[in-house]
C-alpha cells in the first residue's frame, strides 16, 4: 500500500492540531445539492468532482489499479471520448451524467482538453453532449 506512485507535486501531511482546527474552509468546491454538482465553470467542476480521482493538475494516480493522468493525454484528442466517459463511465470510471447537466459536461470536458498540457481547441458543444446521453 505504500507503493502509491504519487505524481502530485506535494503530498499533504494531515496531522491536525486543535490550534488551526476551525479555520473556515472555502465553499468554492460546491456542496450545494445532494445529487447535483453546482459549479458551472469548467475549472470549478473539475475541482469539485474530477480531482477526487484524477488528482489536482490531472496527474492521475496508481495503486492496485490506476486513475489515468489527464495531463498530456492523447485520448482527449477526440472530444467525444471524454464526453462519453464523463456521462456513462467505464471500468473504474463511474458514470457522472446524472450529477452534471449538458452545459456542465461540455464545460468540464473543454476545460480538461485545454489544460494540463492539453491543447485541443475544437470545443465540444452542448449538442454534442445531448447526443451522447444514453
Amino acid at each position, binding site marked *: *500500500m*505504500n*507503493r*502509491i506512485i*504519487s505524481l*502530485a507535486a506535494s*503530498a*499533504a*501531511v*494531515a*496531522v*491536525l*492540531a*486543535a490550534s488551526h*482546527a*476551525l*479555520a*473556515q*474552509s472555502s465553499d468554492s*468546491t*460546491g*456542496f450545494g*445539492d*445532494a*445529487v*447535483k*454538482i453546482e459549479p458551472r465553470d469548467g475549472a470549478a467542476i473539475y*475541482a*469539485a*468532482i*474530477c*480531482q*477526487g*480521482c484524477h*488528482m*489536482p493538475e490531472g496527474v492521475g*494516480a*496508481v*495503486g*492496485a*489499479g*490506476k*486513475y489515468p493522468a489527464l495531463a498530456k493525454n492523447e485520448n482527449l484528442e477526440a472530444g467525444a471520448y471524454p464526453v462519453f466517459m464523463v456521462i456513462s*463511465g*467505464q*471500468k*473504474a*470510471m*463511474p*458514470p*457522472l451524467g446524472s*450529477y452534471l447537466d449538458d452545459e456542465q459536461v461540455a464545460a468540464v470536458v473543454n476545460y480538461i482538453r485545454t489544460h494540463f498540457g492539453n491543447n485541443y481547441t475544437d470545443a465540444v458543444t452542448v449538442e454534442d453532449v445531448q447526443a451522447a446521453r444514453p
Partner: protein
Amino acid sequence: MLSGTSQLSRRDLLAMIGTLAGSAAMYQAMTTLGFAEESPYKGPIKLDGDPKGASVLILGAGLAGMVAAYELAKVGYKVQILEYREKAGGRCWTIRGGDKYTELGGFEQDCEFDEGLYINPGPWRIPYHHHAVLDYCKRLGVKLEAFVQVNHNAYLHSAKAFGGKPQRYRHINSDFNGHVAELLSKVTKQGGLDQTVSTEDREKLLEALQSWGALDENYAYVAGDHSSERRGFEVDPGGGQMPIAKPSQPIGLTDIVQSGLWSNLSIGNLYEYQTTMLQPVGGMDMIAKAFEREVGEMIRYNSKIISIDQDDKSVTVRYEDSQKGGEPQTATADWCICTVPFSILSQIEIKVSPEMKAAIENLPYAAAVKVGLQFKRRFWEEDEHIYGGISFTDLPNTLISYPSTDYHSPGKGVLLGAYSWEAWAYEFTSLPPEQRVQKALEYGAQIHPQYKDEFDNGVSVGWHRVPWTLGCYGEWTEEKRKEHYQAASSIDGRIAMAGEHISYIPAWMEGAILSSLDAIGRLHQRVVSG
C-alpha cells in the same frame, strides 16, 4: 379540532401520506435493488467429498477471500492467497490512533486518536439477520456488543427548519405519529373510511389509533400525560418535594410537516437497520483479525496482480511486490477464487469469457466518504444525554454517529462526523483529507456548538481514493443486473468471482461472505464430480 394547527392544507396532507407510504415504498425499492433480503445462510458450509489435493489460488484477503481459504483448507484443498496490502481484511477495516493511511495522490494521514478510539471507514454495523457474519463471529470468538442505530434523544436537523435548531428525535417522532393518529381517528369517526373499514373494525381502529398516537380520551393529540410519556415532559417527574411534573407542549402539525424532519424517522424501521444491530468490541477489523489468525499463513502480502491466465488445466497469476516492485512472480493453481473489486480487475489482463469481461468492465463503484472526529470530552453524553445512536441532518455530512461503547469514560471520544454519498461524497473526496475534516466540523458545529471548543483531531476516508478498491462498493442497477450478474457470478472456466459485488446485498459483509460460500460450494461440486 386539530391540535397545534388551524387547518391542514392539501399539500401538507399529501406530504404526510407520502411519509406514511414512504417506508413501504422505500422497502419495496430496496428489495428491488436487492438490499433488504434476509440472509439465506443456513449454518456452516458442508463440503462433502475428497478434493484429492486440488489447489486453489485466492486473490484478495478480504472477508470473501479469507472465508474461502478457511473453508477450503479445512477440507483438504491446497490454498494460497495473494493480497495487495500489507495486512488482511480489505474493507473490513478500522483506523486507530497511530495508524498511518496514505490515499491515492500520496495524501498522508497520521491518525492521532487516543488509545481504544477508532472509526470503521467501511462496514460499521451488523444487522441481526446477517446470519453468516454473526455465525463466523461466534465460531471465531469475535466479541460483539450492541450498535445503537436509533436513539430517541439524538437529533433530527435541517438547516431550513426550526431556525436551524436541531430537534430531538423523540419530539418529531411522537408528534408526527400523534398528529397523524388524530387525523385518522377524525376521518374514521366522520365515516370517511366506511367503504374500507367495517363497523366492527371501526371501534378497534379508533382504539388502536388512540394507543399508537398517544391520543387523549377525546382522540386528540395534546399536551398532557399521554403525549409526554412519549416525547418527554417539560419538567420530569421527581422525588420527595421536587417540583411536580409538567407536560411538554407538542410541536404543531404544520411545523412538523413543513420541516421535512419526518424523512429520517423510518430508517430504524428498515429491516437492515432494525434493533438489535451489532458491532465487534474494539472495531470492525476484529473480524478480519480473527480470520487472519486462521488463514494468515496462507497469505502472501504486498502482492500486486498483473495478469490472470487460465487454460483447461490450471490458472496462472503473475504478480509483483506492491512495495518493492521488481521481477514479476508467478502463482499457479487448479482453480482461482478472485475477490478483486471489478474497479481494479477491469484494469488487469484476464482470460475470461466475453460475457464475464463485459461484466467486469461495466460495474461502477459508488462514492462514499467517512470522517472521524476526536473531541476532548464526550460532550454529547455530558451535555446532551446522547448515548450512542445517530443524528441526521440535511447538511452534506448527512449524519453524526455517537460511539455505542465506553459510555461515561472520562477521556476523549470519537464521533463519526460525516457519512456522505452521491455528489457530496465526490466533493468531499476531491478535497485534501484535512479539508474534509474542516468541512465535517463546520457542518457538525451547526448541530453541536461544542465542536468549536472541544475538537482535537480527525481522519477521513474518501473511498474513491482508497488505493486497493477505487470506490466503495459495486453499484448494481436493475438493468445492469439483468445484463451482467449471471455472467459475473458464474464459474468462468477455472475462475470464480466472489465479494460483496457478487451478491444481492452489496456493500455488506454478509454479501461478501455469502458470495464466497456460494462460489466455493459450486466449485467444490465441480472438483469432486470432475
